[in-house]
Structures are given as structure tokens and as C-alpha cells.
């Protein structure tokens, strides 16, 4: 399909990076003791909240002067929700991971 090929060409650098990042992700995570699976999942989950940047961009460039025009208001509200959810994911995720890991530290003498 042409649009897919065009997309590939337009984003070729990103796609190279992605291919390498996938290997990096696999490499970093393999050989993790099962004890750490839960905190690791939780930490990775917090990082996936990076969508928050998208929320910031959306709300940041929303046209506050012409809210009535088109779907500007709806988009702003949805954007605020995206930002809210993203923050929940990021802050909640990092805090809960820290709480889990706090336990591990205490054990060490």
C-alpha cells in the first residue's frame, strides 16, 4: 500500500531507531530475577505514561481564544483528560514502584 511505503520513507530514521530500540529493550530486560518482575513491570508501566508529553502538546497549543469554533472545546476537554490520565499513569506508576522497591532495600543488612 502506497501510504504505508510513504510513511516508511518519511519516518525512515525513526524506524531505524525503533528496530534498534526493540533489541535494546530485549537486551536490558532478559536475565531479570523473577523477584523483580512486578516492580519492573510497574516501572515500565510508568515510563509508558510518556504519552503525557502528547497531552502537554495538545493542551499547550489549544486555541483558548476561539473555544466555540468547531470542536476546539471538545478537543480541549479531551486533551485535559488525556493529561490527567497520563499524569495518573506516570506519578502513580513511579510512586508505587518506589514503594515496592523500598521493601527490598529494608531487607538488606
Amino acid at each position, binding site marked *: 500500500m502506497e501510504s504505508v511505503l510513504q510513511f516508511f520513507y518519511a519516518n525512515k530514521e525513526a524506524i531505524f531507531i525503533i528496530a534498534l530500540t526493540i533489541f535494546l529493550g530485549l537486551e536490558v530486560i532478559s536475565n531479570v530475577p523473577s523477584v523483580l518482575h512486578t516492580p519492573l513491570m510497574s516501572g515500565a*508501566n510508568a515510563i509508558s505514561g510518556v504519552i503525557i508529553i502528547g497531552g502537554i502538546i495538545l493542551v499547550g497549543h489549544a486555541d483558548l481564544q476561539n473555544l466555540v469554533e468547531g470542536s476546539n472545546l471538545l*478537543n480541549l476537554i479531551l486533551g485535559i483528560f488525556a493529561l490527567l490520565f497520563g499524569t495518573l499513569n506516570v506519578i502513580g506508576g513511579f510512586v508505587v514502584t518506589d514503594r515496592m522497591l523500598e521493601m527490598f532495600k529494608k531487607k538488606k543488612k
Partner: protein
Amino acid sequence: MDTLNITNGDIILEFSYLLSALFFVVGLKLLSSPDSARRGNLWAAAGMLLAMIATMILHRDSNGGTIQAGNLIIILVAIAFGGVIGAVIARKIKMTAMPQLVSFFNATGGAASALVALIEFSNPDNQSALVTLLGLVIGSIAFSGSMIAYGKLNGNIKDIFSKLMTYINLLILLGLVIMVVVLLTSDMPLESKQLLVYVLLAVSLIYGVSFVMPIGGADMPVVISLLNSFTGIAAAMAGFIYHNQAMILGGIFVGAAGMILTILMCKAMNRSLINVVIGAFGGGGAAVDREKGTVKEVSATDAAVMLNYSSKVVIVPGYGLAVAQAQHICSEMAQLLEDNGVEVKYAIHPVAGRMPGHMNVLLAEADVPYDKLVEMDEINPEMPKTDVAVVIGANDVVNPAALDDPSSPIYGMPIIKVHEAKNVIVMKRGMGKGYAAIENYLFYADNTRMFFGSAKDSLQKLVNEIKAL
């Protein structure tokens, strides 16, 4: 932004994104070793903070405009609000509810990705319809799927399984693919397209539900890890829309890490991912009819004597211990026994609790020393030399059917071989089946004694009896 002059701000912004991405990688690397894990989490958080602040100050839209003060206030209020709620929930929640909390946070991330994609689809400046739609679909599935996983772990939603679901799911998936292709290729007016996008959103949400619904509760950790990977991919798709390297890298990195973590978890249970997603788990009894022995009960006094005059005791904690919040009293009992010269160890199955590592966290909370926790592969050879194995609120992870009954749904799953110990005491509330709903022949074995009651009460009785000896 390509047509505009590049300012110093743009350069600093991109550089910040590069740093953030590196912080994510270093953070996750440190997270994968017990000694550095906590630092790793802080690194990743710092990376996120850097990307957020840099975006707020330096990001410019396609006309070169920066973020205005009014918008910035809205952003900060929303972040403060979400941040406080998130931090409070994360601090206050009980350790036993940790798995569903992770699932809930994953759901919010998926929802955020889906919302961003939904808004961006109607943005005429947005050239990348393909990634936008993928972000919408994957984000929605991650959201509704995680919410179902949350409900299951929380006990609000029961398993529904029928072979039919597999076919229905395939059909819905096909429908999703067709809709995406139509949206990409047809030249229908924008209004109809937007309508179809809402249909796509709805069907994606339904797919998330129907995808997770038939998967057994015991497999939820694997599913959460998989959905976590989805959320990362959805965030990366949104990153393409904004040509934002931090989002692309962070998202894909988490996507890949989540995928390998999912596979590692499957390995710990000796199952394939396909088997988890499609296969039936739970429901129905084992097909093989076996000679059932009789169930033999033990009194608190007898159990206390048995334990106190052993030389080696292995405690096998399960989710029952966690829900009863009995980890502290359990640790007290172990301490008493040790004071009386008994060697006590804890045998931790990789999937004990509701998530890998969950039990370690719970026992650590009760001040059980790290070196007392022994992993399955290390403890199994010691089992025949063990005088008493105490199973507290665990069931499937000690079910010998996993070793010798090919018809059992858990056949092949590695277990802790408590049945090889000289004596076994099983603490359980009743004769109910475990999470996988399979009969456990351990309970009828000659060397097994049952001690019925809630884990907390039973342990308290034991502690009193041991003290009285």
C-alpha cells in the same frame, strides 16, 4: 517546524528528549537488578520530569508559537490534580492490592494514548493517519483490557470462558483491520470518517474486554504485562504524530521490554503466550479419576508439636496468606521456631501471590530477612530432607498433578514439591479449589495434615501453642 528557523530552544528541546530517552534506558537497566532497582526507578522518573518540563517551556507548534501562559496554567493544574490523586492512591493502597493497581495505572496510560489519537485524527495538520489510528486502536484495547484485568484481580469480574470467544475475538479483530484500511484508503468526506473513527474506538474498547474476559484470573499478570507493552506501543504511535523522539523511544522501549517480560513470565509457568491467550485455563475438574485418600485434620496443639520438634521447616506462602494479611504473624511464628533451634526457610514459587515477586514484597513488608526466601529451583532438592512443609494459603503451586497428570490444565507448570517432604501441613480455609479451580491430590496424601481456618487465625493459634510448649 521544518520550514521555520531552528532556534536554540528547539535544539535544547531535542537534546532534552535525547537525555530523557537515555534516562529511561539506564533506569530500566538499573531496575533489573535488586541492588540498584530503586535508583533505576528514580532515573526513569527524572527522565520523565525532564521531558515534561522541556516540552512545557520549549515546545513550538507548526506555526512557531510557544505554549502560552493560559494554557500552561491549565496544564499545571491538570498535572497537579492527576499527580496528587495518583500519588495518594499509590501510597495508600494495601500491598496485597498491588497487581490490580498496576493494571489500573496501565489502563489510564492506554486511555491517555487513545484520547490523544482521537483528537489528532480530526487535526488537518496531522499527516500520519496510519499511526494515529493504530494509536487509537492499541490504546483503547490497553485501556478496556486493563480495566477488565483490574476487575478480575479485584474479584469484581468472574471468568467467562467458551471456545466461541476465540472465534468472536478473531472476527472483531478482522473488523478492526477492515475499518482501519477503509479509513486509510477511502476518500469519504471528513465527517463520515470521523463518525467511523468513533465506531473504531467503540469496537476497540469492546475487543479489549472480549480479549481479556476469557483468560483465567491466574494468568492476569501475564495479560497485564502484555497490555503494558501495548500501552508503550500506543504512546510510541502518538510520538510519530508529533515527531517526538522521547515518546517514540520511551514507548517502543517499554513495548519491547514489556513483551520480553511477558514471555519470561510465561516461561516461569511453563506455558506459551498463545496458550495463555487462547487456551482454556481453569473450570472443570481434572479428567483423570484418582484414588482419593481421606482428608486428615490436625489440631493446633499437634501441629505446634510437630513444628517445634522438627529440625527443618519450609514455609510455602500463597495468596491466601496475603489476603488474610497474615505475613506478620507468619514471620512471628518462624521467629519462634528459630529461637527453638528449628531451621526455617520460605519457599517462593515464581508466581506465588498474584504476580511474580509479589510474595517477596509482602514478606519483606513483614521483615522477613531476604536470605530466608528461597526460590523454587533451590528449595526443591531440599524437600526430601525437610521435616515439615507448611503450606499457607497456596494451592496450585504445590499441586502434584502438574508433575504427573497430563490431563490436568496445569500439567507442566513447575511446582514446589512439598509432597516429597516428610510431613505436610496445609493451612486452608476449607476444601475449596485454588485459583485455577483444579482438584489438589496433595490434600489427600498420607503425609498431609489439613489445618482448616483463615490463615491469620490458624497462625495465631499455632503461635500461642508454640509459646505454651
